[in-house]
Every structure is written in structure tokens, then in C-alpha cells.
């Protein structure tokens, strides 16, 4: 009896571990910033390089930081989703234009629509490093106290908006 049970048991354990492994997303690296103050930045805006926006200006508001670039293919897939989210006006959406050419970025927004209240320039990618950005697009949710509450890596889908972002934004707005 044991002779048949042992291989079966080993197989079951292996199968369970492999199934867990298959369902994990290795691209999803937990952000060390969750529940920590957002890394501060003061950056030039895309529309007017003479003006700057800093994280301190956004205190008291619930805001999203969406890291994007005109060269980023997944950002294009994500773009209509962000446009729809922007229409709902649930939070301020700040775009971090990551390692992009301002001209390309402007053309991109003119052609595809602009979901961002403000886009800021990170041409060197240094702010990206400060925020632990490793794959564009990435989206952070920051609460009224300036604390990072959630991070999404990769393109945001309508399903993510519905299941995660909307409930989170509503609770943060009520806080």
C-alpha cells in the first residue's frame, strides 16, 4: 500500500508547489514604499518647463502617479483605461514622463488624449530610481498625507480599476 502511496504523495506535493509557482507573477515585486511616505520630487512640467510641480504641492489630495513614456508599448494599451478613469475625477492623476523626449510625449498626448492633470519630466530616469520604478507603466496611489498606499506594475486594466482602484480611491477620499 505504502509503495503506491509514496509516489502519489510526492507527486501531489510537487504538483501543489508547481501550481503555486505558475500562478505567481515574478514581475510583481512588492514595493518597499507601501505605507511609507512618497519619495519627494520637484520636477519640470511637460506643458511648461518653466514651471515645476513637487510632491509637497499635492499634500491633502488623493493622487495617482502614473509612470509612462511615448516609447512604451504597454502604456499605449493602458492609455484608454486611464482616459476613462480621468473622466470619473476620483483622484488627481500625475504623469511621470519617464526617459522620454518632451516633443514625443506632447505629440502622444495630443493624439491619444491626455488623462493627466499634470505630467512632469523625468528625462534622466532619476526620479524613477527614487520611486523604485523598474518597468513602465507603473501606477502608485498616494493618500492625503502623502503616503504611498498601493502600487500597480504593468498596464492597468478596466478590471483592475473596478476591483482595486475604485474601492481604494473611494476609501482614501473618505479618510
Amino acid at each position: 500500500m505504502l509503495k503506491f502511496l509514496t509516489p502519489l504523495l510526492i507527486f501531489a506535493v510537487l504538483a501543489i508547489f508547481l501550481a503555486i509557482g505558475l500562478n505567481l507573477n515574478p514581475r510583481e515585486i512588492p514595493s518597499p514604499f507601501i505605507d511609507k511616505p512618497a519619495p519627494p520630487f520637484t520636477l519640470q512640467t511637460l506643458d511648461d518647463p518653466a514651471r515645476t510641480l513637487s510632491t509637497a504641492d499635492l499634500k491633502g489630495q488623493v493622487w495617482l502617479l502614473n509612470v509612462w513614456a511615448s516609447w512604451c508599448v504597454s502604456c499605449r494599451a493602458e492609455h484608454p483605461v486611464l482616459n476613462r478613469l480621468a473622466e470619473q475625477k476620483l483622484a488627481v492623476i500625475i504623469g511621470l514622463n519617464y526617459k522620454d523626449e518632451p516633443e514625443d510625449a506632447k505629440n502622444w498626448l495630443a493624439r491619444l488624449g491626455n488623462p493627466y492633470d499634470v505630467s512632469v519630466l523625468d528625462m534622466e530616469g532619476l526620479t524613477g530610481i527614487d520611486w523604485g520604478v523598474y518597468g513602465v507603466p507603473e501606477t502608485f496611489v498616494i493618500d492625503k498625507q502623502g503616503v504611498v498606499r498601493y502600487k500597480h506594475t504593468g498596464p492597468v486594466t478596466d478590471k483592475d480599476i473596478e476591483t482595486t482602484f475604485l474601492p481604494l480611491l473611494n476609501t482614501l477620499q473618505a479618510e
Partner: protein
Amino acid sequence: MRIIFLAFFLLWGVEAIAAAVEVKNFDTPEQERVYNSLISELRCLVCQNQTIADSNADLAKDLRAQVYKMLQQGKSRQEVVDFMTQRYGDFVLYNPPMKAKTSLLWLAPLLFLVIGLLVAWTVVRKKRLATHSESTHDSAQSEEIRRLLEQGDDR
């Protein structure tokens, strides 16, 4: 045609070498040593199974530049490691620290060794018991055979 192929492959090699060589000047050999050991211990987060020394991804280049800049500013090795883990978490380290969360990672090899030894021990013991009982069985059987043969002689 063959010439074109040859040229293609030769040039391909040149490009790969050009991409891999980055000229960096260091103040001291010690600093260069720290730089090289750091970049081969930090994970490239885009191409996760490479260090930032091995990877040509944009982010790896930026992180190498960041490490270089911090060392030039006189930052210590530990300060660079802290800078990276603050932003990217322990995952960025190929040599993660021993913590409650990573204890399984560190202790698993030992655990598997113990399991392996236990299995080997039980298998060996079982084998030994089996051969032992088999040999007693054999002598009992041959006894029986001898008895039967003797009976046959009597007849």
C-alpha cells in the same frame, strides 16, 4: 553571399563587445573593486535572472551609473546597498540578508540535506533487514529440501 554572412557575424560580435565595455574611471583600485563587486551582486529588475553587471537593459545601465556616482561621492558599500533596498526591496540583492522572511531561503538547503539523509538511512536499513530475512528464509528452505531429499533416499 558567404562574404556577406561572414561580415554580418563578425560585425555582430563587434557590436556585442562594444555594448559590454563601459569605460569608468576610478580614483582608487579599492573603489573599482567595490564597484565591480556591487554591480555583480545587484539584480537587474527588468531581466530578473541577471545582475546589473551582466545586463544591457536601460535600467541596469542607470543603476550602474547610480552605483558609480555614489561611490565617486565617497559613499560606502553599505550606503549603496541601503539606497537600492530602500527603493527596490531585498529582491534587488542576489545575496539577501538573513531575516524571518528569508529564513526558508537560507535554511531550505539544510532541510533538504536532513530529509535526504533520513531517506537514505531508512532505505539502507530496510535493505539490510530484507537481506537478513531472505538469508534465514533460504537456510530454512534448504533445510527442508535436504529433508525431502533424504526421505527420497529412504524409499
